[in-house]
């Protein structure tokens, strides 16, 4: 006689639902995060087969050690000028974020999203790739756009949906666009831009161009089918693209366990597609720079895509609509074991004699000033509702040319 399952002496099944280590009121617990020492991860030749470097998906590429020195094979040996530029951009980004957040609180706009704690992820990447390369960002890579020299005042015009808004008042704040700066129009829909980055890179390859694409996705959004499409297409057509997963541990209130981050690293996703994969300390400016540069070289040499998990932490709220103290210990950000990217780069520059606390103070003041000046200019054009593009523009750009419906609807509005 065959034993049916319930006749066997087996436990019953039970549904497992992930739970983060700490909720509000619990002590912060980052004991599961054990960063390997800086300099420990090997740096393979870009021509190495992805299959030969699978271990890099399970470690953490780190350059800055506890003594703030750059060590190991991934040290990009950067000119101090580049490092200072990185510090400048990150500092400016933080000042910008702070002000825009306050402006939202004051009702000058409807919405804002900070990238606090993640500035290095976008800044170092922006400096490591070429000006012609195209960034397919999420809403948390504003530092990349700032690094490209895009004017703060234009960013603010977008935030305010004012008369000079480059998006003509159509987009939610932070959804910038700037093709000439290599910045793809941000989508409110998560994940969609990741396989588009691959398509853009395929087009560049098709045309015999040199330009590559740099895509971003949050770790929570890796669960979308688009993530899988991006990896599949990138692998099949060996597209010249850098695919960055920004693992900042949280997706609004859901910790990374809900994107299967407890069971494996996000970098490890690359293995199944034969895509080269790196896991990088995202708060280490030098590591981000070096990894991005390596991936860019591979891409430009027709060696195909690289998946990079940028391991970092979302130190601020998800957005102005969010209150993280409802779902994680309020002190969690301060305990993040990989520190703050600005602080770490600053210390490195100080340790190498290129910087000082006083200089940092000045830089911060200048950043606040620059933001204030831009804000003044932008607010003179108008904050949300004070000024906006002509209402007739609302019917433009649906198609290249409006059809009769749109013409008629515009008439109905009387504009």
């Amino acid at each position: 006689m065959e034993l049916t399952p319930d006749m066997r002496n087996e436990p019953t099944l039970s549904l497992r639902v992930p739970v983060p280590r700490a909720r509000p009121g619990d002590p912060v617990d980052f004991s599961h995060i054990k960063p390997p020492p800086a300099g420990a991860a090997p740096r393979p030749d870009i021509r190495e087969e992805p299959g030969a470097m699978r271990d890099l998906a399970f470690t953490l590429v780190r350059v800055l050690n506890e003594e703030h020195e750059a060590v190991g094979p991934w040290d990009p040996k950067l000119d101090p000028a580049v490092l200072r530029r990185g510090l400048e951009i990150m500092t400016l980004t933080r000042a910008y974020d702070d002000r825009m957040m306050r402006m939202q609180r004051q009702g000058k706009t409807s919405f804002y999203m900070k990238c606090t704690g993640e500035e290095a992820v976008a800044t170092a990447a922006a400096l490591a790739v070429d000006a012609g390369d195209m960034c397919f960002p999420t809403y948390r890579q504003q530092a990349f756009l700032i690094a490209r020299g895009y004017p703060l005042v234009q960013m603010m015009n977008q935030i305010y949906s004012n008369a000079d808004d480059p998006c003509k008042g159509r987009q939610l704040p932070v959804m910038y666009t700037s093709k000439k700066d290599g910045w793809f129009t941000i989508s409110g829909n998560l994940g969609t831009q990741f396989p588009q980055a691959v398509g853009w890179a395929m087009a560049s390859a098709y045309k015999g161009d040199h330009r590559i694409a740099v895509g971003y996705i949050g770790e929570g959004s890796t669960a979308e089918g688009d993530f899988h499409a991006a990896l599949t297409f990138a692998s099949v057509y060996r597209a010249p693209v850098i695919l960055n997963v920004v693992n900042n541990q949280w997706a609004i209130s859901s910790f990374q366990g809900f994107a299967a981050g407890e069971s494996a690293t996000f970098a490890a996703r690359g293995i199944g597609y034969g895509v080269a994969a790196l896991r990088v300390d995202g708060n280490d400016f030098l590591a981000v720079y070096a990894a991005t540069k390596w991936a860019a070289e591979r891409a430009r040499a027709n060696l195909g895509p690289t998946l990079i998990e940028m391991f970092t932490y979302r130190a601020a709220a998800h957005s102005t609509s969010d209150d993280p103290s409802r779902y994680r210990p309020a002190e969690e950000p301060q305990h993040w074991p990989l520190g703050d990217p600005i602080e770490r780069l600053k210390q490195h520059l100080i340790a190498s004699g290129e910087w000082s606390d006083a200089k940092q103070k000045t830089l911060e003041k200048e950043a606040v000033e620059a933001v204030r000046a831009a804000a003044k200019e932008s607010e003179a054009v108008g904050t949300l509702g004070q000024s906006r593009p002509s209402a007739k523009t609302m019917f433009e750009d649906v198609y290249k040319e409006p059809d009769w419906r749109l013409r008629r609807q515009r008439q109905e509005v009387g504009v």
Partner: protein
Amino acid sequence: MPAMNMIQALNSAMDVMLTKDPDVLVFGEDVGYFGGVFRVTEGLQKKHGLTRCFDAPIAEGGIVAAAIGMGAYGLRPVIEIQFADYIYPGYDQLVSEAARLRYRSAGDFTAPITLRTPYGGGIFGGQTHSQSPEAIFTHVAGLKTVIPSNPYDAKGLLISAIEDDDPVIFFEPKRLYNGPFDGWHEKPVEPWSKYDLSDVPDGHYSVPLGKAAIARAGDELTVLAYGTMVHVAIAAAAHAEVDAEVIDLRSLVPLDIETITESVNRTGRCVVVHEATRTSGFGAELVALVQEHCFYRLEAPIERVTGWDTPYPHAFEWEYFPGPKRVAAAMRRAMGRN
């Protein structure tokens, strides 16, 4: 009876059903510990346990697919899509699978799932937090589409949806969560507690799918509306000084054709309103049905007042939103009074 706003009423519906039926479970992005970005599932995890109300990966297609598998097993999953604008990655699973399971298997398998999702504009959400995609579900044989306009109906309809043996897409007018909204957006918002329809019983009751309500009785003209636009239509009737009968459809599929026909045959005039883009919106179906059923009684063209054929623009929210002025103008045109 407690006064509930729509959020509380929806929460209560799920609470009641979780208590009543062990096969009901609730999941979606951020719905578990946090209670959802609009707090509609607040407290349900704490009260009913981790496996009965929990978070999901950010994968709308996966959420729907998992729910279908659960439904095939015999559960009654209630899933949340965080914004209706993000429902499209789940569209294939809804259209090709949930809607067809019963038909293709000749009743062998079914998908008794309820998909809740906030829809509509008026909260400065821009084009990806304001959409009204109901029409693309009404086109799909096998799906039901439900949209409440007040707390009482919200709870009763949601309970009906959960108890229904077919898949139901349940759109929640997010602009109405905290209070009715009649489109006069510069007026202060009044809380639901000031309105009768916030008298929501604590326990189990249901409002049947497929039965419309007369939100405002009238004799001069019939307005067909649902969700937020019910309140706009009522405001518009006052503004236009037209004695309009405002029909709150409550469910688009199944549709209460009798109530519609009776009213339009009596008034001879009809205005259809919705927030969604005009072309191929559900208003088109309503116009088609009304002219099919009431052609010989119609005294004027049926008017449609809808969102424009553009995305929902952040800064032009109130030009896009079909507010009481536009609805009133259509009423007056339909009355020949412009």
